[in-house]
């Protein structure tokens, strides 16, 4: 007959608190209140302060998930954030750490990776089949036939061990803020608290960050002495206003110059907050992580760590089992024995590893039934508690440049103080061992030193007392099998096999077996992996080394990382009018501007036959002042500027030093030493930096002041044969063509607004005036233009009409009709480039390009069938069917009633009159004739009226 009671199957509500103990001194639950939730659809209750799993454990549940590969039942192991068997789905949220997340009313908690149910999972793999799923099996199978791999893969994907994200997942609330604490303390145990208090008392501002829901670390589950000490430390922390305490929060990483992301949950009204701290000094005090023991059956529900038992009993007042075996190698294990006894658990056997006693294996199906001891005895038990040692979670130290070294005497890695950067310190168990007094004394010195290094106290360097490491037996594996990585279902045998196959370095074994790559990021698994590998290869643990500890310490939601969306958008002052008049928006970089107002072809016709106005505010504009502006322009543009008179504007093109076309625009000379330069909309910022670059790094002696004024002016282009008539109704500037000719600039008053700049230019090929008005009056002037031009049939036109108009006129668009390798002579700039200038940016490359004369050319293109509009990017073929060029711009011309285009075309085919073949996207070929790029009014007569 079994010594264990048979679990009784009852309704869950009957079992609430079935395993709950009488009140404990350090318990964190509020027994006066209950919290209702559902577990796999069944209602349960717990208390405020319970984690999801402590409430379920209190109700007698012991299985919380199925494992990744073999779908083995898994229960509680660490009872902390790291617990690999307690990952659950909560509502929309996948992969919730059930042994850490506090219970909340109405939670819908479900097990993950189970089908059809947690209790009966059809994918569960028995011991025999698991041999075939051994490490590396994917690499060795499904190789042939190749055509079947996609089908295999589909099946593999159904095995995925994870929660799910519904496509209509409700939005979350995430926050992000910057912080500049003098000291960040990672870890709120006794050492962290003491370090924080000492730093604050030395004048530092401190952020004290604790992963759990309360400060205190292991003191919380200690006896009366520890609890008294805890209360004292908490009071000291609370008394320091310079300490900001963040619980349920983690230091995610340590980046360059102490850039420290802190991820905080539990902030009211916020799902998760990312604090971007830039700390003077980082104090690393995460304590130690208890390490599981590797032996056959070590993943059975009921096999737990000593710290897990102590948390469960003392914090949540849950009886973890009925009959226990304890494997202890340290005081924590011994204390667990006391806790179990005080909780009424029968301790059937204490196996003292310090006396050479051991555990060989655990047996059971859905939970532990029998423990097999090293001496061969078999003990019935539903609980096996192991206390075999500690892992120092050195991740933040490694990220700081430290290389912790293995200390065999203590059976763990310890920091190498010689490699710690000046702005990082460590305290507590990660450094060494001692009683609470020793830890606190050490941490107090560390805290004072941290404040000093952060520049908050002028004292001499603080002498930090030594914190020696205590002896601990090296206990990693019983050599009987078992799991090394619970999250990834990697067994000791897998590691040994991998090493034997040649994957015998720690990085290769990690990659081959995926050990340490799961959600705990190696904090539970790394050292055991290293130890098993070391044993398999005959090397020491120190020789074997560890894998890289990468950010993040704990996984962070994408929502918190993203924070609020900061995607700047820019609007012209006329935007309200555009919105009211049905403009279809076009997103052009940060700018939102009208693409058209419903009828782009009609807009084109209005410009060609009457008058239209377009908002061109996004055009880049730079105000240039000083006696050396002309020299600057001569250097940056390929054409000549020193000859430009006051009151004149000129078109210019800039190339980079490799001769590639960079930007273009017109620049006007407003006064003797005053110019206004325009750039493309997308190039505005780049050109400004470019100008400053040449001024600051090449010609600091030039006296030029550059000020970006893109949005100081609202810019409107008034275009069409009746543009003069329209503008004349609103301005005091003399528009007489004799006195204000083509390519000239004037300043004056428009619609009652002073300080306007008027350029007579012609991107559209029509008589046109570009009016730049102080931006605050942009909407006013625009409305006045529309009103004053009503009888002239004035129409607003958008970017699409402008594209057609400029294409009819053969004006290339930089970046569309050119690309990242298009040099000046391939952009139709032959007449503009002045190779006889002494210098300009890109001159040598353009000189060589001219000499070679082999580069592609920008040409006009007309399909013989004028009704065919070849889509832009259609390829042009040479006679052998190879690529000879491409259509860069293509539209139906409302003015000509036929299709027209621009193309980049190989030199040999670029002569006017040549017929070329265009391959359309649908596969058809059409013939087109090469023409001049200028399709409408090649003489420019319409511009000079």
């Amino acid at each position: 007959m079994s010594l264990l009671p048979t679990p009784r199957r009852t309704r869950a509500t009957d079992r609430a608190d079935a395993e709950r103990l009488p009140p404990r001194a350090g318990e964190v639950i509020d027994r006066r209140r209950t919290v209702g939730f559902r577990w796999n659809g069944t209602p349960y209750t717990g208390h405020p302060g319970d984690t999801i799993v402590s409430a379920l454990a209190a109700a007698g549940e012991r299985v919380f998930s199925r494992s990744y590969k073999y779908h083995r039942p898994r229960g509680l192991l660490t009872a902390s954030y790291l617990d690999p068997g307690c990952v659950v789905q909560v509502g929309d949220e996948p992969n919730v750490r059930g042994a850490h997340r506090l219970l909340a009313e109405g939670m819908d908690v479900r097990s993950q990776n189970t089908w059809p149910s947690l209790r009966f999972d059809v994918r569960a793999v028995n011991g025999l089949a698991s041999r075939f799923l051994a490490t590396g099996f994917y690499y060795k199978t499904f190789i042939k036939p190749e055509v079947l791999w996609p089908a295999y893969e589909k099946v593999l994907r159904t095995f995925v061990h994870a929660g799910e994200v519904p496509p209509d997942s409700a939005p979350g609330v995430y926050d992000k803020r910057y912080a500049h604490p003098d000291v960040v303390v990672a870890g709120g145990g006794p050492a962290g608290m003491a370090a924080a208090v000492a730093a604050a008392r030395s004048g530092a501002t401190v952020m004290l960050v604790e992963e759990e829901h309360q400060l205190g670390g292991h003191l919380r589950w200690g006896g009366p002495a520890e609890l008294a000490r805890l209360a004292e430390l908490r009071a000291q922390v609370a008394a320091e206003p310079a300490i900001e305490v963040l619980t349920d929060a983690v230091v995610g990483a340590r980046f360059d110059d102490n850039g420290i992301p802190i991820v905080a949950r539990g902030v009211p009204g916020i799902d998760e907050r990312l604090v971007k701290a830039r700390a003077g000094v980082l104090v690393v005090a995460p304590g130690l992580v208890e390490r599981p023991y590797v032996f056959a059956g070590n993943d059975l529900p009921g096999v737990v760590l000593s710290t897990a038992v102590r948390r469960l009993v003392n914090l949540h007042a849950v009886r973890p089992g009925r009959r226990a075996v304890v494997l202890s190698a340290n005081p924590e294990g011994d204390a667990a024995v006391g806790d179990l006894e005080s909780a009424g658990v029968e301790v059937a056997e204490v196996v003292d590893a310090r006396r050479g006693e051991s555990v060989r294996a655990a047996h059971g199906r859905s939970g532990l039934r029998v423990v097999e001891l090293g001496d061969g005895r078999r003990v019935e038990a539903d609980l096996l508690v192991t206390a075999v040692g500690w892992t120092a979670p050195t991740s933040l130290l490694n990220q700081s440049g430290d290389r912790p070294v293995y200390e065999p005497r203590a059976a763990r890695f310890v920091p190498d103080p010689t490699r710690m950067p000046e702005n990082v310190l460590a305290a507590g168990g990660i450094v060494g061992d001692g009683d609470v007094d020793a830890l606190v004394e050490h941490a107090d010195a560390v805290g004072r030193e941290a404040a000093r290094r952060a520049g908050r106290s002028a004292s001499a360097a603080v002498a930090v007392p030594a914190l020696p490491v205590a002896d601990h037996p090296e206990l990693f594996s019983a050599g009987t099998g078992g799991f090394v990585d619970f999250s990834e279902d990697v067994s000791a045998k897998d590691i040994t096999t991998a090493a034997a196959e040649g994957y015998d370095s720690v990085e290769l074994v990690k990659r081959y077996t995926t050990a340490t790559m799961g959600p705990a990021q190696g904090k539970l698994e790394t050292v055991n992996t290293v130890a098993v590998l070391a044993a398999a290869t005959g090397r020491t643990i120190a020789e074997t080394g560890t894998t890289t500890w990468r950010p993040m310490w704990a996984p962070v939601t994408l929502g918190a990382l993203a924070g609020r969306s900061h995607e700047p958008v820019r609007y012209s002052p006329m935007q309200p009018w555009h919105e009211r008049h049905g403009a279809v928006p076009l997103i052009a970089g940060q700018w939102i501007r009208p693409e058209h107002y419903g009828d782009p072809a009609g807009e084109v016709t209005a410009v060609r036959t009457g008058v239209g106005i377009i908002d061109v505010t996004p055009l880049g504009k730079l105000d240039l002042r000083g006696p050396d502006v002309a020299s600057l322009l001569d250097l940056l543009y390929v054409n000549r500027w020193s000859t430009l008179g006051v009151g004149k504007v000129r078109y210019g093109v800039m190339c980079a030093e490799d001769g590639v076309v960079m930007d273009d625009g017109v620049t006007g000379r407003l006064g003797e030493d005053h110019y206004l330069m325009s750039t493309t909309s997308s190039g505005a910022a780049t050109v400004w930096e470019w100008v400053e670059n040449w001024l600051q790094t090449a010609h600091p002696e030039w006296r030029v002041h550059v000020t970006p004024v893109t949005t100081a002016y609202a810019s409107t282009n008034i275009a069409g044969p009746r543009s003069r008539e329209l503008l004349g109704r609103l301005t005091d500037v003399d528009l007489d063509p004799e006195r204000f000719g083509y390519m000239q600039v004037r300043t004056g008053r428009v619609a009652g607004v002073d300080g306007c700049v008027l350029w007579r230019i012609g991107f559209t090929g029509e008589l046109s005036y570009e009016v730049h008005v102080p931006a605050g009056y942009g909407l006013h002037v625009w409305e006045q233009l529309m009103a004053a031009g009503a009888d002239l049939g004035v129409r607003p036109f958008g970017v699409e009409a402008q594209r057609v108009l400029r294409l009819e006129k053969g004006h290339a668009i930089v970046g569309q009709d050119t690309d990242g390798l298009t040099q000046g002579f391939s952009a139709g700039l032959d007449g503009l480039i002045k190779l006889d200038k002494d210098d300009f940016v890109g001159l040598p490359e353009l000189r060589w390009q001219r000499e070679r004369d082999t580069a592609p050319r920008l040409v006009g293109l007309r399909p013989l069938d004028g009704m065919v509009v070849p889509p832009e990017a259609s390829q042009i073929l040479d006679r052998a069917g190879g690529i000879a060029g491409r259509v860069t711009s293509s539209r139906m011309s409302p003015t000509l009633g036929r299709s027209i285009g621009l193309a980049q075309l190989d030199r040999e085919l670029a002569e006017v009159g040549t017929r070329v073949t265009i391959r359309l996207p649908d596969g058809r070929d059409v013939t087109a004739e090469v023409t001049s790029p200028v399709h409408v009014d090649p003489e420019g007569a319409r511009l000079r009226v």
Partner: protein
Amino acid sequence: MMLLPCPWCGPRTATEFRFVGEARPRPDPATATPEQWRHYLYVHANPCGWSTETWYHRAGCRRYLSVERHTLTHEIRAVRDAATGTTAEAAP
């Protein structure tokens, strides 16, 4: 991200700056051979160690800076204004 100690603005996150590249002298365009010019255009010393670079503080003082930076550790040992030579000590 590393902090870049701007001589004008003090230490700022590197995201406020634009990396322009290794400081390289421009050959005389009148006499440069294609080899010399394209060496200037394309070839980098690309050291794993100390490098003298140009950075532009686009979200701050809008000055071009000459920066001595270690490309592995990201330590920065000297920063001056590219035009005026001003260092943090000399900035007002």
